[in-house]
């Protein structure tokens, strides 16, 4: 499959009074056309910052210090304001966690949708309105006309999120970044939204970068997964491989800590220690301090993503256990 977006060795830093926060440290992965890619990790792993960096919206105080984000050959990191504005909505769109906070409460949702459409596409108000209604139907909203005239607070969380998705895809974006899109929603609604995203991927051929901390969501919807830890990708590959044949000690530890039917009432395995706070620059593998298999080389330089698992499986893990040095 063709590569749509490629994140190469991205580094993002924040300057605070407490010191420099190394939020993203060498994040590398790519997203193919028409696939659903899951970027999964716990808090502080840099997944949200990465998502925001892709659309050129690094939070205030942050800076991309190195790396490239390539979309069809152009590097997003070097784009100016104008190019970024054209990019957002037309080529890459983003949907956030809490739809109620993304929608303006004093305008009808139809109004807001049309506003976005006319920003990017040269359509008359009537054409834009029709397109908005088409999009509302595409996200399975019942009675699009009525919803068009409604205000955000009149709609449920699930509907609001569908509208956000509709707005995001209204101008023909090729990549949709969804940052914890269902975390604020109920489980049954979450199921609806995830099914919707999967359908849209099929029907419209849009690629989706799903950022989440929920491994279950990733298991059920994503084609490929990247496991992030302390600003780097530690494991990458097809979902089945990464979740059921995980090779990196962190991924393994994370999956083992999940309560599952088999674990009923027994003690859950957990990873000793805690996630690094990002204030100290870690010279080697970020998981070094907590890893059962740590070797001296792990503390010295960060391991590259190495091929693991079945040959030809695309599964990679950033761990010296799989390098010639580690296996020696």
């Amino acid at each position: 499959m063709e590569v749509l977006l490629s994140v190469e060795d991205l580094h993002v830093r924040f300057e605070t009074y407490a010191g420099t926060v190394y939020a993203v440290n060498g994040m590398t992965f790519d997203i193919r056309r028409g696939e659903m890619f899951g970027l999964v990790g716990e808090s502080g792993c840099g997944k949200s910052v990465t998502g925001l960096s892709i659309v050129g919206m690094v939070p205030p105080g942050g800076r991309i210090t190195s790396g490239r984000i390539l979309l069809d050959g152009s590097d997003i990191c070097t784009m100016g304001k104008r190019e970024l504005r054209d990019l957002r909505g037309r080529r890459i769109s983003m949907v956030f966690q809490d739809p109620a906070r993304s929608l303006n409460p004093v305008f009808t949702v139809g109004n807001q949708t049309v506003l976005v459409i006319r920003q990017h596409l040269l359509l008359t108000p009537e054409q834009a309105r029709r397109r908005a209604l088409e999009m509302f139907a595409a996200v399975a909203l019942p009675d699009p006309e009525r919803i068009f005239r409604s205000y955000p607070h009149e709609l449920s969380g699930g509907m609001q999120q569908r509208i956000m998705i509709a707005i995001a895809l209204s101008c023909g974006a090729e990549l949709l970044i969804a940052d914890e899109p269902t975390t604020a929603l109920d489980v049954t609604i979450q199921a609806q939204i995830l099914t919707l995203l999967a359908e849209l991927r099929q029907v419209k051929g849009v690629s989706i970068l799903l950022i989440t901390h929920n491994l279950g969501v990733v298991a059920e919807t994503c084609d490929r997964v990247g496991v992030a830890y302390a600003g780097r990708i530690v494991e990458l590959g097809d979902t089945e491989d990464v979740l059921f044949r995980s090779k990196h000690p962190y991924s393994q530890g994370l999956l083992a800590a999940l309560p599952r039917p088999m674990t009923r009432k027994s003690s859950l395995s957990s990873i000793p220690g805690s996630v690094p706070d990002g204030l100290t620059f870690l010279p080697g593998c970020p998981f070094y301090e907590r890893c059962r298999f740590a070797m001296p080389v792990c503390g010295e330089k960060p391991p590259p993503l190495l091929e693991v698992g079945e040959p030809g499986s695309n599964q990679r893990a950033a761990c010296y256990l799989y390098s010639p040095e580690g296996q020696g």
Partner: protein
Amino acid sequence: MNDHPLVEVRGLSVHFVSAGGLFRRQVRRVRAVDDVNLKIYPQETLGVVGETGCGKTTLGRAILRLVKPTAGQVLFDGQDILKFDPERLRTHRRHMQIVFQSPHMSFDSRFNILNLVAEPLQTHTGLRGEALLKRVMELLEQSGIPGDILYRYPHEFSGGQLQRIAIARALALNPRFLVLDEPTSALDVSVQAQIINLLQRLQGELTLTYLFITHDLSIIQHISDRVAVMYLGKVVELSKTEDIFYGNGLHPYTQALLASAPMVHPGARRERILLQGGVPDPANPPPGCAFHPRCPFAMEICGRVGPRPVDAGAGHLVACHLVEGQETT
């Protein structure tokens, strides 16, 4: 499991009434908890699960009388605490405690850890000075926190550490009953595991009874002995964990819930029972069975008559006309 429940809830209702509109004519009555009956036996963990608006959080608080119930009884060791006068209630609180969802917000950020954990002891016991210090350190150690962080402030700790401190504080007076209101929802997966392990260990060591409230099905099935599924203020199903999770729930909502919850499972892309629409407004519940508009098996009677809980065998309670076997009025 013996026959005498530690906590028994009978016909508990918590309705929030607010008057709105131009001349305060329009009354909104939110039936947060509606006629709930539960028994919680000593040393068991009763899990309560449901989505937004189901009333599980309000139920937990009502049982502790942190919100005022509109009707019903809450029997603790056979005595109705809803009838206690304020002073008796206050002293009784030492037997029943709560751990909240957000560790950062459960603490007054101006107090240091020592004062925070000592507060229950200062309120109900005569412990002071050195003895108080020692007891606080004991409690912290019990929760897996070294006692030498007494003078630090909450904002210096992570969510998981704070939750341990919250548990230490809740156990300060040796309560018998603990309400855990989504204690791990704000935590990362690896930390969540640590806290769950801690809670299970403490339950054994201190013979505690838990009411565990959460929306996360994987946690509920791991930690609970019995599970109550709530929808719009009512308990729709109540049974042993194995019956619901492995036998598949009997109530259509339970089935849909189980099918919707994303789990990490080989071959996980299974058939979903996708429900249409969303949870209705609790102030305006549908007539009859509150679930009937979304139920794939709804019958005519479901829109008229609310189902009463029925024992489907071995204490497995279900509130559904399908199970009642009644198809005619």
